[in-house]
């Protein structure tokens, strides 16, 4: 990296951080979607990302299906997996304790990981970038067009979700179910369906993250756990349940990781995000943007 000034190096780290941070933001949103309706933390959230990436590789590269169609096919399949997970594993255990629920979602994540290994093997897979391969220079730093795709997709997802929750009847019904399931039920909202939809929706958001990140970072069967853990870090940092907090915290986690990799040690970059996760959990479990009062209401 000779000949590149320190300031452009910093910009480079920032760009990498924002790119990866977008993915953490999406994973964090996925956690929030399910958490808001059910108060379950889905330990298989990272697996949706992994499946999104791998199914996209299958449809776009192996089956040679055009990009946009492959995108929707991938979404459909992963949503189906999310809904099936809710129907066959979460729903039957509806009155289980938190401990049991944790173990159920962990079991689902092992199952999905094992199935992915069965289907794709252990090697990482490549996916061609959506547009130009060549990086362009932005204030002395190289930017891959795929980074813009990732950032753009994240913003679109956030916009669509906001629209869905604020403007559509169905979205408002979901908010009602998360706010007070009993009252929502009395108002004629089918809370059971809402729970199922929340799993489908969160699977979709996870899959989108997997689809857009694969051209930059490749994808393999066992990537889910770490992505999920860092996404959870972002969700907690932003205040569990808060969508905008999740997005902002996602970027923060990504930036922290990228600067740690660039300035301190690349080997410890995975630990950086987790150290932050632990500190936030210990010092301020309600997150940067969450309120302590709400936290107290949602005692486990």
């Amino acid at each position, binding site marked *: 990296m000779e000949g590149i000034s320190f300031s452009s190096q910093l910009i480079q780290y920032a760009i990498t951080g924002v790119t990866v941070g977008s993915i953490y933001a999406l994973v964090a949103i996925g956690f929030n979607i399910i958490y808001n309706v059910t108060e*379950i*933390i889905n*330990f298989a959230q990272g697996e949706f990302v992994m499946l999104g990436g791998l199914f996209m590789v299958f449809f776009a590269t192996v089956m040679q299906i055009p990009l946009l169609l492959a995108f929707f096919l991938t979404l459909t399949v992963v949503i189906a997996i999310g809904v099936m997970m809710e129907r066959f*594993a979460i729903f*039957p*255990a509806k009155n*289980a304790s*938190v*401990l*049991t629920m*944790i*173990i*159920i979602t*962990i*079991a*689902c*994540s*092992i*199952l*999905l*990981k*094992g*199935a992915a*290994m*069965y289907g794709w093997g*252990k090697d990482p897979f490549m996916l061609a970038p959506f547009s130009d391969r060549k990086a362009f220079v932005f204030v002395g730093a190289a930017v891959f067009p795929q980074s813009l795709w990732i950032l753009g997709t994240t913003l679109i997802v956030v916009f669509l979700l906001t629209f869905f929750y604020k403007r559509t009847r169905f979205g408002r019904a979901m908010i009602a179910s998360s706010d007070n399931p009993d009252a929502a039920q009395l108002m004629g909202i089918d809370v059971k369906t809402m729970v199922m939809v929340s799993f489908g929706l969160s699977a979709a958001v996870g899959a989108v993250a997997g689809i857009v990140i694969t051209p930059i970072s490749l994808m393999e069967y066992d990537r889910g*756990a*770490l992505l999920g*853990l860092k996404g*959870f*870090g972002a969700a*907690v940092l932003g205040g569990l349940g808060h969508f905008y907090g999740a997005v902002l915290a996602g970027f923060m986690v990504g930036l922290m990781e990228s600067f740690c990799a660039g300035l301190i*040690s690349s*080997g*410890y970059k*995975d*630990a950086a995000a*987790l*150290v932050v*996760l*632990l500190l936030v*959990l*210990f010092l301020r*479990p309600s997150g940067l943007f969450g309120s302590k009062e709400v936290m107290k209401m949602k*005692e*486990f």
Partner: protein
Amino acid sequence: MTTTAGKKDIRVLIWLVAGIAIFPALVLNVPSFRHYVDIMVFVGIFSLVNIGLSLVMGYTGQVSLGQAAFFGLGAYVSGILTAKFGWSPWAAIPVGVVLTGMVAFVVGVPSLKLKGHYLAMATLGFGVILYVVFNEEVALTGGPSGLADIPGIAIGPWEIDTSLKYYYLVWAFVFAVLLFSINVIHSRVGRALRSIHGSEIAANAMGVPTSSYKTRIFVISAVYASLAGALYTHYMTFLSPSSFDLFWSIKFLMMVVVGGMSSIWGALLGTCLLTYLSNEWLHMFHDFDVLIYGLVLLLIIMFLPKGLVSLARKG
């Protein structure tokens, strides 16, 4: 130890000691079963981890997904001190155990204020951080390529150099830990722990110092895991970070859940079953045992949430 339940546990323990004592005599005469003694060494080692995990999960109702980190800490401290600094294992093992206990205390005090999902994620995060450290501190741990030339254990002039001798050594530790744990369970502390599982608020109101008890049991479980790690080290004489990754924490959790969370006998049963399953019966599935693991765990937790021991209790 005046409760009848306590006497029952001691009776089970005595039967187990007898069974473990004669087990090698049964299998060593049959050539195709001879390696079962090697597997039983691992069952013993993992049992040490899982007895502790069962105390944390089954009796206190807390989740720890970082048990592999304590296992690894015990393994690496003992491995590094003996292989790189020429210590005797008998000096290195206690150092590792005490150090792990201290780490567990430092992590446990703030972690155990958290509940449910938060605690699970905190312990999971801690486990991954230590895994990264094992990989990155190449000068000490050998990094991803591993730490080799770790010496075995000797008792005075008597070298523990065969699987059979190691089998008896490991199980001696298991019985000591079991005896101690049974005492804990049936003491005042054990009743306090169960009251925490029932309702922490109620336990607090009754004057149980819940957070101090939770931390103590967490430290004890880490100490067990650390001891197991040290025994693992000197049996394998080689360490690599992959034995202490996230999947191992989950495997320990699975063993406890499959056997039955609410009893240490369940932890032993689950450990035995899953260790044989992965070392022996699932070999035909090669790498795909992960898939079967996930399925077994899911089915057990959904249809038999109290684990396999609950079948024995009904019958």
